[in-house]
């Protein structure tokens, strides 16, 4: 029996745990009591880290599509076919798209970026979860200008006031939820804002209902109250921020609710306070909402104050890392804009190839704009808001290469499948939502013929006429450190010594914080009086690490089995008004289209809001028409 200390591959909290193996097979998990994030506490997902990698369904054989069916091939055959077809498409000027992933390591994401920009000369690189979570990071980057961001999960537990813009962090980020609970237990005031009474809102001193899409309204009211009640740190605001006078002028016109005023006062007066915000805040105007939160922290002097926290709750394990590695059509490693000539030159020198200053296609645009796709551990059909429609779009492409450890919708439509070593079979690093770069360690040998993805990317690049050669992922991190300022000085040795290293990927500069209000988007009107939203921006039930872990699959997929055609959630009051009972079909119509779904009546929803879980968004795709929040009307459908 062996144990290997590694990082939990599920959410972005990044807990430390040991995977136990026997006879080369993963058999169990032990939480690490001394790990700085987990401190002995890991979630249900973390406890089952050992299961997915041992799944029967693992990909362990290269596959090439012949006569319409995927058939076993040798590595050389599969890589040759992939390189030939990609070269051919490239030479005819067809657009290529590359997808990195929030479940791939920093090293894998970085090399995929290098493959795209240096070997293939394209900025068409992205990952599916960036659409929903990227704005939290880029909003911070754009608003901060230069003040230090970031704070640690343990810091949250010591805060006196916590503002939580909620999805449902008990579910999405359990380790951060623990820190919030510890703070509340120690007497902190918790303010939750959202459209549902979640578990955390039950512990809150104040829960503020915000309609979906109108999250920014509350931020604005708090900002306005701070200015009007004189709660701002004016010295800091004038010295370190831009746009102060305009904000003061704007504040005089804002109507402020009592709840917002209360929350603003608690926040401004606290010595140590936390603002935590997740994908619900990104549902409409993510960047502007994030920027307004930065303004809130800056105005009150919490920005950069030791002990105060401003934390983006990005969804999956390595969302932050993928963003840091420049997996985006308009960014280079380190969140540097593609327009930054100096940064481009630095990379051009290191990589020996010119880099275009023209932003590429994002993941959504690739689905229709690219003729060929290389997807590394990404799955647009489960990650993109477009849902299953993405699968049909991928089928229309000329050529699709899937590099993954597990079957996904991409491997289903792919022309070439290259089996990759899993999270438990490869070395690498993840960057958690705090910015902590941590080691993922190989615990067992790769399944079948699977190879570490960093090697697959290098092999592909070599066949495309671009040499990338690394002895191990440690060498890749050395290169990352040499071209990414925020990661400079990082090495496996350094990470090893301190169980992870906190980086600050938000660029430090001398710029000022741009004070600004949020974008407010009220969608409803008299004709369409209900706000319908897609809940969450990510669904664990469609993640291979959950699907292929038996215990987790049972829990996370049970809802889907009960509702094979999806459902829509309604408050008791709205359901009574419409005249529907539990499981009756309800027809929902927006200006974009309509759909009929069984209804689930929820006591934790307030009247006026209807919810379609992210997992069921495909069943209401016509109603949403590409938006995350739409105004609808509902009526009882036949059969009810």
């Amino acid at each position, binding site marked *: *029996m062996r*144990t290997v*200390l590694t990082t939990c591959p599920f959410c972005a909290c990044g807990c*430390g745990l*040991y995977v*136990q193996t026997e006879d080369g*097979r*993963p*058999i*169990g*998990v*032990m*939480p*690490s*009591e*001394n*790990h700085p994030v987990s*401190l*002995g*506490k*890991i*979630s*249900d997902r*973390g*406890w089952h880290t*050992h*299961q997915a990698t*041992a*799944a*029967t369904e693992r990909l362990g054989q290269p596959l090439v599509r012949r006569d319409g069916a995927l058939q076993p091939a040798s590595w050389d055959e599969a890589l040759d076919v992939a390189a030939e077809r990609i070269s051919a498409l490239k030479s005819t000027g067809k657009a290529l798209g590359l997808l990195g992933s929030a479940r791939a390591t920093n090293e894998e994401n970085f090399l995929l970026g290098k493959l795209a920009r240096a070997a293939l000369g394209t900025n068409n690189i992205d990952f599916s979860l960036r659409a929903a979570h990227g704005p939290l990071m880029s909003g911070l980057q754009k608003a901060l200008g230069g003040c230090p961001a970031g704070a640690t999960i343990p810091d949250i537990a010591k805060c006196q006031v916590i503002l939580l813009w909620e999805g449902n962090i*008990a579910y999405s980020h*359990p*380790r951060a*939820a*623990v820190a919030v*609970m510890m703070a*509340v*237990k120690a007497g902190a005031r918790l303010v939750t804002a959202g459209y549902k009474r979640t*578990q955390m809102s*039950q*512990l809150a001193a104040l829960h503020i209902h915000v309609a979906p899409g109108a999250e920014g309204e509350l931020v604005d009211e708090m900002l306005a109250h701070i200015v009007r009640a004189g709660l701002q740190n004016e010295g800091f605001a004038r010295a370190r921020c831009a746009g102060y006078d305009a904000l003061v002028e704007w504040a005089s016109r804002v109507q402020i609710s009592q709840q917002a005023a209360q929350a603003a006062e608690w926040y401004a007066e606290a010595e140590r306070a936390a603002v935590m915000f997740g994908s619900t805040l990104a549902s409409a105007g993510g960047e502007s909402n994030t920027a307004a939160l930065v303004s809130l922290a800056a105005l009150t002097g919490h920005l950069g104050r030791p002990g105060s926290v401003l934390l983006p709750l990005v969804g999956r394990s390595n969302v932050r890392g993928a963003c840091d590695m420049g997996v985006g059509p308009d960014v280079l490693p380190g969140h540097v804009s593609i327009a930054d000539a100096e940064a481009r030159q630095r990379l051009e020198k290191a990589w020996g190839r010119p880099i275009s200053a023209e932003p590429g296609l994002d993941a959504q645009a690739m689905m229709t704009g690219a003729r060929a796709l290389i997807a590394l551990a990404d799955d647009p059909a489960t990650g993109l808001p477009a849902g299953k429609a993405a699968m049909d779009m991928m089928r229309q492409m000329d050529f699709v290469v899937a590099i993954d450890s597990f079957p996904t919708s991409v491997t289903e439509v792919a022309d070439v499948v290259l089996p990759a070593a899993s999270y438990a079979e490869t070395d690498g690093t993840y960057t958690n939502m705090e910015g902590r770069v941590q080691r993922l360690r190989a615990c067992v040998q790769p399944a079948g013929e699977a190879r570490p993805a960093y090697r697959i990317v290098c092999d592909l690049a070599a066949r495309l006429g671009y040499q990338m050669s690394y002895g191990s992922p440690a060498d890749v991190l050395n290169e990352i450190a040499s071209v990414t300022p925020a990661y400079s000085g990082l090495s496996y040795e350094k990470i090893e010594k301190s*169980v992870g290293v906190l980086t600050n990927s938000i660029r430090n500069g001398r710029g000022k914080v741009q004070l600004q209000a949020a974008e407010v988007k009220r969608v409803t009107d008299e004709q369409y009086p209900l706000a319908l939203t897609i809940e969450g921006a990510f669904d664990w039930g469609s993640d291979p690490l959950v699907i292929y872990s*038996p*215990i987790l699959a*049972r*829990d996370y997929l*049970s809802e889907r089995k*009960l509702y094979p055609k999806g459902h829509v959630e309604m408050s008791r009051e709205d359901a009574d008004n419409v005249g529907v009972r539990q499981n009756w079909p309800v027809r929902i119509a927006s200006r974009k289209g309509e759909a009929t779904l069984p209804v689930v009546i929820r006591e934790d929803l307030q009247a006026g809001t209807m919810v379609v879980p992210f997992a069921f968004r495909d069943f209401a795709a016509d109603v949403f028409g590409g938006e995350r929040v739409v105004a609808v009307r509902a009526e009882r459908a036949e059969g009810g």
Partner: protein
Amino acid sequence: MQVGTPRIIGRGKLNQWVAHLMSRAEVIAPTAGQTGDVLFLPIESPEQVAWQFENTLHPPKQFLLPQTEPIVAIRRNEGYEVEPIYDERKRIIFAVRNCDVSGIKYLDQVQNYELTDAYYAKRRQNTMLISLACNRPCERCFCICSGSGPFLEEGYDLQLTDMGGKFLAEPGTEQGEAVLAEAAGLFEPASDRDTRRRHELEEAARASFADYTCHFASAMRRISTRKVDESLWASMGDWCLQCGGCNLICPTCYCFSVKDRAVDGVVMRQRMWDSCQYAAFTLEASGHNPRPDRKDRMKRRFFHKVSAQYTMRDGMVGCVGCGRCITVCMGTTDMPAIARGVRKGVWNG
């Protein structure tokens, strides 16, 4: 229950003895992990034993009830060939704390109700327990409240007590006595002074528990007579994140699920640890869930652990006071906290 005679071994001879034990069985002992965590693992040399440890966060129960346990191999030939998989490795769990010995004693009973679980039984028959008594309680434990430590009178094969420069070894079974006899050259008979000293250490340990207590009796009375308000369970449930950690690290929890997975072309039926705190643990095929909410699942857990009904059947509460749930809990709903909430009828997180 003493079998045979207590003996003394000098600290300097311990490694030699451990090496001898390693020659007769796989020795599982507390070892130092990468971040300073102490983990029970098979050792490859006597020097690996971490003598200075309070207790591990992960209990050694996994060596009797593994987190993943292949139980049947199914091969398809002309028909089906079904072969049970027994683990009959000879093992010694060394320097195991007495709370864990008590946990194993509890599991021994449970696995033998009505039908004996053959998989557990084979492992257990081949496993020897050499415990290390606790001279002082660890930060989180309350074993004194469930009679499962810090020293025991039975349940172990051998009980060691750290007496400073030497260790007292008390055999609790014939097997324990035999192991001492085998290594007779390393041990010498304990004097009356040694046995007196051991009892003084036990008294001192018992006296130093201070506030680390858990009042099972009054909690039990309220739980068993349904005097706990539903709203109290609901408030307590709000502080549980359903990670299942309390179950998985609990020395007395034994629930599992079964799944067939193909391994190298052979279908392996596996048992895997499961938690009654997971929402779909009791979900029925019809879609009905008898314990749909957090409060229902929490109530069930504590009914099993501290109700009079189960205590009468098992002869002890379903808690050995190791306090691991205090550390592992992702919320604040560990055993002493819930017992306190139930006893006082109020919950403040």
